[in-house]
């Protein structure tokens, strides 16, 4: 009855397809592309300072204390939404650096004076090169980097109130060497 069994193969294949489809329907893909560099050392980079009289972000800063690296842009609307949360973190004494993507100094200046300036150092990434080299796929994104220069955590999208606890927890965890 070999032929008999072969005849049921199409049904089995179809049911497998249906199962996959149902799975995708009920737990849809998050469509977020997470950086594979989480757990890896931050790559080397050289970027100019974004603002006159303000230090740039450099690879050498990531030694000793954990820091937060915020990828943002003055033209990015969700970045406005996360500004209060970043300010709150800065008030707690968490050092936050920023890299502005495809931006201009005067626009960055305006953005920071309008929505608040939580940053220590601010660098300009005019051609998204740092963004690509740390595996970030959009703005805003926030990385926690520990004292040995290892990327410990990536948050994609604007930081909401609900995300704060997790981010601070990850920051505290980064104090302990992995």
């Amino acid at each position, binding site marked *: 009855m070999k032929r008999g069994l*072969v005849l049921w193969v199409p049904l089995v294949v179809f049911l497998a397809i249906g199962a996959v489809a149902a799975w995708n329907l009920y737990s849809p893909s998050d*469509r977020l*592309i*997470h*950086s*594979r*560099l989480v757990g890896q050392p931050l790559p080397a980079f050289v970027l100019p300072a974004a603002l006159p009289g303000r230090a740039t972000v450099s690879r050498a800063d990531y030694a000793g204390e954990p820091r937060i690296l915020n990828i943002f*842009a003055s*033209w*990015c*609307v969700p970045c406005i939404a996360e500004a209060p949360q970043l300010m709150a973190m800065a008030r707690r004494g968490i050092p936050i650096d920023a890299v502005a*993507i*495809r*931006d*201009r100094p005067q*626009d960055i200046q305006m953005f920071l004076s309008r929505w608040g300036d939580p940053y220590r150092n601010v660098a300009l990434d*005019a*051609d*998204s*090169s740092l*963004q*690509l*080299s*740390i*595996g970030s*796929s*959009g703005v805003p994104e926030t990385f926690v980097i520990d004292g040995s220069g290892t990327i410990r955590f990536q948050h994609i999208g604007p930081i909401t109130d609900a995300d704060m606890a997790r981010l601070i927890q990850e920051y505290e965890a980064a104090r302990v060497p992995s």
Partner: protein
Amino acid sequence: MSRPDRLFMIALALAAASPALADSLLPPTEYANKQLADPRQEAAARELMHEVRCLVCQGQSIADSDADMAGDMRNNIRRRIAAGESPQQIRAWLIQRYGNWVTYDPPVEPLTWPLWFAPIVLLGAGLFLMRGQFKRRKKKA
């Protein structure tokens, strides 16, 4: 039209394919839309750009996308090809950061075996079904 007006209109008219995404006011990076002088290098870059998936548009290669980030990725790839890097090196560099998702040409590894062996398996299964028929025919003949 005055210049700022024009800039505004252009920003509106040429915003990325997805209207939800705001766009930088900065003009595209140099090699986003400029070919390399060496046609061989440009051909290599083109081939790679056609297989790298755009990170912000999700359904297009960076070679077919108006998004700023796709332009920056083209700029990045062309510059590195011009600097002598091989397409394989650049592809590996991107996969290291974004995973296999970033390439439309899935690398051959255990997870993609079913994909790459599918043609052979299908051919085998088809021939098996056909062989059954031919044998029966031979008996009759």
